């Protein structure tokens, strides 16, 4: 396990009091703890997604009933519509009306069974639609696999001639033996970014994607740790979880696309591509492209919006009239998108990201189990935090990488720290002190500007604005590794001190009124949108119904 290259000379030459294991924890224990955390957070995620479904269903209900009424009005001409259907619809309408009366006209609250009927009638269609969209997307993308787009970016098979690439293949074989799994496929990316990911559909057909830069920068035991992290991640079932996670976004994206399909070519193209993978054409890479196509409308302007924009620029009489006709559809689409955004931003994305973080910690602990060398992973993470920033392959793969987008750690600084580590080996330096020292040294050099790499837009959390990253901060991971036995100067204990907790609580307390205000405002807007959407849709469908009746 130990290789010829000792990358920690400090441990052999002088036994300096390096801050060693703090609050020691065995890797089995760490794995159990992280598994439990995953379960807890998954439950929170499910609740959060369910809660998001409620307002969306409220927005979806009016057009669904409107379409139903128009459909019935048309059908009535050709076939006899049984009177029970009309009765049921009237009953639903009156029970919803009774509740609205209570709020607007101070009428007494109707009896509970009426409320229940109304709630079921209003919520069920939306919930059923969303549930089936999600199920469909999940089934589709589970088959296609995760992160396949990485394999299309010029990924190649490692050459047996090149010593470093041969080493990678060897290391993968070693780690597969350590984990008791069949050897995984390996692909290389000739990329400037130093990062590695595991992609695929199941642990059995997973593929490791490693960028060439990783091979250049990492020592053998560091590479081993990176590979062990990825194999552990696949073995823990992260690919399945990743796809389920992404399918939630995709279900929302599909809903948006379906609504836009009658109005623009882009949504139709996305649906067409989706049908193609539905009929087993194309592989993982296509799946990622379709994910992108489905959800791009959620972030940028979608077909409906661009059409409205175009109309407004024309500003003719005809296009104004067209805008008027389109307004309800536009408004419906907008309310849906805004509500999705608010609820995913506030409600389900943070627990989702935190849940995914527990998977990263779990994979770290698995890597320690496979290599029995926490130092290897610690120094690998440290190095990758410097070079792994720019993620290739877009957001549908970004969360599969071992390190995420690094924030504020320029490449030069990382290199300087690397030099410092060798220089100050044996000294009691925490990571923070090391960064400060390195920064100072760089600043003294003449004409040198520290440039923080630009933040990237193509990570999963950026779908809705990205309050919480899907990757834990490197410093935190290092602290956890320290608890697993890494002799790594991460600084401090992995757990917060009482003082830090108090400070955090105080900050939270101070900002809580502001937070409440923002959340309250957003929710008010959502409620207003739901109401306005109801009114607009009702008017639009009343006109359509009248027109349908007029046509002989």
């Amino acid at each position, binding site marked *: 396990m*130990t290789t*010829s290259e000792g990358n920690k000379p400090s441990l052999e030459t002088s036994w300096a009091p390096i801050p060693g294991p703090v609050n020691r924890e065995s890797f089995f224990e760490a794995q159990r703890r992280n598994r439990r955390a995953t379960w807890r957070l998954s439950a929170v995620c499910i609740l959060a997604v369910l809660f998001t479904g409620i307002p969306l269903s409220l927005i979806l209900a009016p057009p669904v009933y409107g379409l139903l009424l128009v459909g019935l009005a048309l059908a009535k001409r050709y076939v006899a519509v049984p009177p029970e259907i009309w009765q049921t619809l009237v009953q639903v309408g009156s029970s919803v009306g009774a509740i609205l009366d209570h709020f607007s006209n101070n009428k007494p609250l109707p009896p509970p069974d009426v409320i229940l009927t109304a709630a079921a009638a209003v919520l069920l269609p939306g919930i059923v639609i969303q549930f089936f969209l999600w199920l469909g997307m999940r089934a589709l993308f589970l088959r296609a696999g995760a992160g396949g787009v990485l394999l299309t970016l010029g990924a190649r098979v490692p050459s047996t001639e090149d010593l470093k690439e041969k*080493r990678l293949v*060897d290391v993968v074989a070693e780690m597969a*033996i350590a984990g*008791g799994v069949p050897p995984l496929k390996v692909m290389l990316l000739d990329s400037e970014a130093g990062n590695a990911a595991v992609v695929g559909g199941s642990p059995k057909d997973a593929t490791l994607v490693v960028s060439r830069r990783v091979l250049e920068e990492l020592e053998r035991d560091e590479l081993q740790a990176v590979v062990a992290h990825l194999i552990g991640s696949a073995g823990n079932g992260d690919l399945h979880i990743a796809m389920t996670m992404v399918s939630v976004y995709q279900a929302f994206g599909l809903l948006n696309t379906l609504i836009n399909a009658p109005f623009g070519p882009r949504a139709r193209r996305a649906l067409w591509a989706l049908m193609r993978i539905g009929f087993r054409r194309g592989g993982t890479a296509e799946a990622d492209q379709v994910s992108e196509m489905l959800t791009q409308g959620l972030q940028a302007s979608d077909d409906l919006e661009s059409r409205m924009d175009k109309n407004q620029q024309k500003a003719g009489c005809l296009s104004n009239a067209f805008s008027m006709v389109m307004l309800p559809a536009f408004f419906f689409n907008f309310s849906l998108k805004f509500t999705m955004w608010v609820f995913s931003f506030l409600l389900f994305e943070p627990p989702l990201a935190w849940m995914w973080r527990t998977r990263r910690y779990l994979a770290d602990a698995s890597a320690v189990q496979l290599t029995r060398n926490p130092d290897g992973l610690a120094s690998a993470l440290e190095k990758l935090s410097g070079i792994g920033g720019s993620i290739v392959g877009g957001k549908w793969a970004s969360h599969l990488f071992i390190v995420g987008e690094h924030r504020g750690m320029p490449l030069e600084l990382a290199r300087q720290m690397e030099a410092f580590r060798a220089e100050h080996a044996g000294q009691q330096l925490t990571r923070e002190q090391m960064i400060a020292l390195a920064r100072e040294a760089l600043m003294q050099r003449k004409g040198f500007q520290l440039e923080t790499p630009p933040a990237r837009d193509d990570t999963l959390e950026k779908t809705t604005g990205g309050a919480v990253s899907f990757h834990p901060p490197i410093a935190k991971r290092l602290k956890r590794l320290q608890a697993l036995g890494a002799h790594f100067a991460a600084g401090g204990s992995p757990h917060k001190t009482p003082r830090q907790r108090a400070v955090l609580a105080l900050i939270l307390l101070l900002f809580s009124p502001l937070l409440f205000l923002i959340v309250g405002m957003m929710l008010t807007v959502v409620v207003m949108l739901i109401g306005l959407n109801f009114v607009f849709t009702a008017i639009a469908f009343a006109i359509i119904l009248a027109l349908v009746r007029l046509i002989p």
Partner: protein
Amino acid sequence: MQNWIVIGVAAAAVIYVIAAFNRLVSLRYRVRDAWAQIDVQLKRRHDLIPNLVNAVKGYMDHERETLESVTRARQQAMAAGADVNSRAAAEAALTLATSKFMALVEAYPALRASENMLSLQEDLNSTENRIAFARQFYNDSVMEYNTARGTFPRNLVAGPFGFRPAEMFALEDAGERAAPQVKI
């Protein structure tokens, strides 16, 4: 009513026994598989050594003794048979011989830098790692199996069905425990 309770309890017990038995069987298979994996990796090392010796023959003619000792150790390891203890001893001797041999390579800069030698060193390094990791996985599997068969109430199932405890792969003496350093 009482009959139903008795039947229910009996059914639950039977289901538990079946589940416990199956788990023990799958764990035992994993232990066997892990053991076979060690063999595979040891064989890999045996196959590697002739290549290694051939690669250096031209350079190290006057070190014939070391080369021969490596070859001999390999033959002994291959002939060691099925007995665990004698095999472990033979393999340990082979490890020692190869590490001495690799230390010798140090003294030949031209040889050390050659592409072929670097590649062979990587092979040897990786093979040693594979053996170590195969052992580690074997020991982990044994630990899990022994824990499963030894803990209550599964030990009630393990005993009658003849699930014997598996043995860890331990190194014999302290001399072997000092890992041979292949410094290159």
